[in-house]
């Protein structure tokens, strides 16, 4: 007897609407969190590459933003993993990826590449901040009265020095050299970390939209674009906050005469932003060229899947792809940055648009790739769950994505307490 009980909602059904003939088991299984995942790893990789430009290629002008983006990239690291954990149906088994990695799967590399990358960033940070840690230890030790908080800090900083208390000139030179080496190793690893995120999609032969060898390269380029854009944006915002505090003589501006003045802050901001935005432009040109090449190639070769792809790309998702992604996310900011009279404010707005454009690109790849049925005879529409009515619609809905978006800033706030991103280390030889 067939029971006509209330329908059991299967994973994916809550946000998938099927049109025409779609196979019974097809749903949009990879939703907003899988859009967030390459977006966030992209930001990590991009921020790291930006910081490496200073450490490896010694672009002196980037000194301040490099330090900031390195710390920020560390804050972004755990967040690259978060969307995956929120997406997994069995999040507590996530550790299996590290325990029994099946290396023929692109995802299996995640645990190992990710951990390697985390170690590299942490090591680089250690070389940058070691002397600072030692100074903190010395400072707290020299204090007469120690509160419980101080004792905790002392223990933390002592542990962070890893027992290397030597702050002689020779030792600092070694730190600096090692730091450059780590940054140099880090660039290919960062590219690999993100390139393979592109490989995860590009190697799915069942999916007509995803399967292209260009995917990893496209992902790396757009990752660098988004990472740089986010760093500029955050840098400008933090500089503005610091200017505001300097004007009001808040925090360290109240008692520290050596703190940077409003003019110094503004000057530094101008210089760094104009420098970095040129790099942003180069990578943006590369990313868009490859994406357009991919699309032209599909249209020209017209293999079996083209009929349905054309309908998705040029008709159903036209607004999302050509207006929001390419128009608002690429062309507008591109013009804003190349037209004469570029200033910090215009660049900042352009960066916000670029970030949006890269997000839309991830969206159009991940969701767009599932917008048509494997039967090539039907379509699926994605409806992002906004108001959660159970754990699943929270995790894979608007608020889940928002949680992922906000976490790096919360983490940055705390990490910044231990490794101040804007600390000027007077005695370090650079």
């Amino acid at each position, binding site marked *: 007897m067939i029971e006509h009980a209330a329908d059991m909602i299967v994973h994916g059904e809550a946000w998938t609407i099927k049109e025409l003939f779609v196979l019974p088991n097809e749903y949009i299984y990879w939703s907003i969190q899988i859009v967030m995942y390459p977006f966030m790893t992209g930001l990590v990789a991009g921020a790291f590459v930006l910081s490496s430009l200073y450490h490896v290629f010694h672009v002196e002008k980037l000194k301040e933003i490099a330090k900031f983006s390195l710390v920020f990239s560390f804050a972004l690291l755990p967040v690259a993993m978060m969307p995956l954990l929120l997406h997994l149906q069995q999040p507590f088994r996530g550790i299996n990826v*590290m325990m029994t990695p*099946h290396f023929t799967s692109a995802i299996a590399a995640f645990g190992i590449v990710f951990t390697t990358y985390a*170690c590299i960033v942490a*090591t680089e940070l250690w070389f940058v901040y070691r002397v600072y840690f030692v100074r903190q230890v010395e400072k707290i030790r020299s204090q007469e009265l120690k509160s419980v908080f101080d004792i905790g800090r002392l223990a933390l900083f002592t542990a962070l020095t890893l027992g290397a208390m*030597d702050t002689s000139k020779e030792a600092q030179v070694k730190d600096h050299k090692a730091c450059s080496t780590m940054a140099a190793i880090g660039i290919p690893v960062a590219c690999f970390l993100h390139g393979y995120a592109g490989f995860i999609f590009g190697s799915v032969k069942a999916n007509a939209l995803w399967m292209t060898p260009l995917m990893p390269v496209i992902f790396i380029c757009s990752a660098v674009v988004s990472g740089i854009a986010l760093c500029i944006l955050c840098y400008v915002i933090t500089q503005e906050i610091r200017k505001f505090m300097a004007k009001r003589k808040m925090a360290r501006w109240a008692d520290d005469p050596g703190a940077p003045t409003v003019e110094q802050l503004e000057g530094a901001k101008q210089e760094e932003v104009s420098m970095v935005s040129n790099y942003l432009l180069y990578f943006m040109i590369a990313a868009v060229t490859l994406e357009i090449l991919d699309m032209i190639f599909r249209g020209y070769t017209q293999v079996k899947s083209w009929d349905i792809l054309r309908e998705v790309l040029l008709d159903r998702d036209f607004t999302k792809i050509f207006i929001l992604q390419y128009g608002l996310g690429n062309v507008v900011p591109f013009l804003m940055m190349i037209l004469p009279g570029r200033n910090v404010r215009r660049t900042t707005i352009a960066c916000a648009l670029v970030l949006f454009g890269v997000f839309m690109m991830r969206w159009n790849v991940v969701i767009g790739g599932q917008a048509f049925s494997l039967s090539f005879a039907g379509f699926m529409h994605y409806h992002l769950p906004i108001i959660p009515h159970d754990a699943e619609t929270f995790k894979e809905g608007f608020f889940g994505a928002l949680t992922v978006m906000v976490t790096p800033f919360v983490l940055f706030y705390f990490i910044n307490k231990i490794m101040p991103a804007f600390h000027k280390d007077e005695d370090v030889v650079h």
Partner: protein
Amino acid sequence: MKNHVWRPLFAVLALVVGILVFRLFYVPSDFGSGERGFMYSYHRLSNEEEWKAQPVKYSDTGKTNMHEFCGECHSDVVEIRTEDLHGTIACENCHGPAFDHPEDPETLVIDRGRDVCLRCHTDLPYTTSERKRIPGIDPKEHNVDDMCVDCHDPHNPRLEEM
């Protein structure tokens, strides 16, 4: 080594050793590859036995020895069926899965609904399909309020014997 530059490396090595030791306890000992190599058959080997141990619900012996299991006790009905039109339908399609019948469950729940018959006997205008060879009715017209089994004998459905 006096050089402090190597200290992070030691920390990382300690981490790696930690993970490997944890892995030793965490991963089932029978994890390995089957005949088809690492790419297609890397798995927990005992899982195959777990699948094999899943209980069987439909107990009849299948196409090769049609109705053998059911015929052991219900030979009178089964005899009519095998020589008749509905002989190709497995008993359990309508009578439900037998499990360990007659011990558990003692009686089976028989599906007597119209839905069961309509699966094949709804008239569909598909002349090129085998479906057309089966007598069909329009379920919205044909004795809508009655059960099929009220008039037709599902075991011996020939209309002339109604």
